[in-house]
């Protein structure tokens, strides 16, 4: 199926569009013809505006009270009638999964920054730099495991392992639980992909219902795991442990509620785990597809920082974030009404022709490169420093040890319009020794 050229019929809520690269053509059309584009929605999901231009996303991001996060940040959201029906059908499960508590990603000012400040010192450039040696050690341990094989699934064995180890280490999660964290993260963020719908009979996978159930199951199991982790840290507090820090934190003299704590843990593990993985995999993919750029980097590794920024712009691992409008406001020449849902498409703004010269050219020396892969403003990615550090160290060590590493088969993409993900990436390289 080719990308639709009829603007009115464009549906960015269709995850199939994101299984190949066709979504970039759709973004390009929208930027040109309907930069603030209305999708009327479906039976169970809300209508929403698609925002595809850089300056409009900047404007929205700079006004967190006008464009709030507390009504949800992923997708168009479920229609109230559909939500009521789902709750009526299975109240216990639905209540369990909805959690009821927001983490900082779905919080608005003024509470938002108070919550964020409880942990943000652990994510500053200073804190990230202090962990560089450890990150390099972890990276080399991961590469040791594949060093003599000559081929592997880069996603499963390399790209996913570094961010997983780093965030789990920061949260004091034992190595034996890392595979579980990996699996549950996939269920939650990759719920629309049949590969992760493991609780659903094979012939019923791929539906919206299968996706909902998969996500709910992932959330439920994650919450159970962190309930235990909280109990453990209460009994045995640890030093330099994000969970202990949260347990001991106070806002306005009050400790965080159990719901707040669980939601925070959930956000940290999921955000810290899935996104950087895809930047690393996507980075290796685009470098494999642009051998001249890869060679340029190999010849001069001082270009690594600039290459990392271009990888972030190119891959835009978080494809979108949603907001809800609180007062009538004009965006990009279009009137938005209070209550409207909108979705900001980072993959689009990072190819905005008005901002980036020759945006479809991958150029590791691109400058300036003020991409919005991490967002901007109130909700700027807390983990950006770690993502950048992990990307840099991974490619430094990977190319130091396996300079000829490249894709040996097609990338298997994640079926999702939220995460620009690669599930499997076969690679080959000259083994060490």
């Amino acid at each position, binding site marked *: 199926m080719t990308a639709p050229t009829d603007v009115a019929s464009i549906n960015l809520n269709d995850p199939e569009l994101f299984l190949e690269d066709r979504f970039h053509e759709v973004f390009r059309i929208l930027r040109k013809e309907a930069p603030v584009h209305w999708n009327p929605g479906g039976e169970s999901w809300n209508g929403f505006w698609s925002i595809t231009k850089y300056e409009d996303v900047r404007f929205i*991001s*700079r006004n967190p009270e006008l464009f709030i996060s507390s009504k949800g940040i992923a997708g168009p959201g479920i229609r109230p009638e559909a939500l009521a029906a789902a709750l009526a059908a299975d109240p216990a499960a639905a209540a369990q999964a909805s959690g009821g508590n927001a983490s900082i990603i779905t919080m608005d000012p003024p509470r938002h*920054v108070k919550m964020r*400040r409880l942990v*943000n*010192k652990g*994510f*500053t*450039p*200073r804190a990230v730099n202090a962990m560089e040696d450890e990150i390099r050690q972890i990276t080399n341990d991961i590469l040791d495991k594949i060093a003599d094989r000559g081929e592997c699934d880069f996603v499963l064995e390399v790209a996913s392992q570094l961010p997983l180890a780093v965030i789990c280490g920061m949260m004091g999660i034992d190595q034996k639980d890392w595979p579980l964290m990996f699996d549950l993260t996939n269920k939650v963020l990759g719920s629309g992909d049949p590969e992760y719908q493991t609780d659903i009979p094979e012939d019923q996978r791929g539906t919206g219902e299968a996706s909902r159930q998969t996500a709910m199951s992932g959330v439920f199991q994650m919450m159970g795991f962190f309930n235990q982790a909280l109990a453990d840290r209460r009994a045995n507090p640890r030093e330099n442990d994000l969970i202990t820090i949260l347990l001991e934190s106070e806002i306005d003299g009050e400790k965080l509620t159990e719901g707040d704590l669980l939601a925070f843990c959930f956000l940290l593990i999921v955000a810290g785990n899935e996104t950087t993985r895809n930047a690393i995999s996507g980075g290796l993919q685009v470098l494999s597809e642009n051998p001249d750029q890869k060679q340029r980097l190999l010849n001069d590794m001082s270009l690594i920082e600039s290459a990392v920024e271009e990888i972030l712009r190119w891959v835009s691992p978080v494809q979108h974030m949603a907001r809800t409008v609180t007062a009538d406001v004009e965006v990009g020449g279009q009137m938005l009404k209070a209550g409207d849902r909108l979705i900001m498409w980072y993959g689009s703004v990072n190819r905005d022709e008005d901002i980036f010269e020759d945006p479809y050219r991958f150029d590791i020396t691109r400058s300036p490169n*003020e991409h919005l892969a*991490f967002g*901007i*403003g*109130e909700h*700027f990615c807390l983990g*950006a420093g770690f993502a950048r550090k992990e990307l840099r160290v991974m490619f430094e060590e990977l190319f130091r040890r396996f300079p000829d590493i490249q894709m040996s088969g097609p990338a298997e993409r994640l079926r999702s319009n939220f995460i620009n993900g690669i599930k499997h990436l076969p690679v080959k390289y000259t083994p060490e020794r």
Partner: protein
Amino acid sequence: MKVKVDSDMCEGHGKCEMSAPEVFKLGEDDVSVVLVDEVPKALEEKVNRAIRLCPRQAIAWVK
């Protein structure tokens, strides 16, 4: 004109110091401080750049 950094929002990225080192300095506590009382006209463009680039949008002219 005066410029200020919102210390609640600042997370120590240091892009302001990179853009306008005459005006901003990142402190030991990972919060940026403003070094001048009034920003000289000649530095206004650099400060505007710092305002635009700050990932947290923590900098603003004081009206």
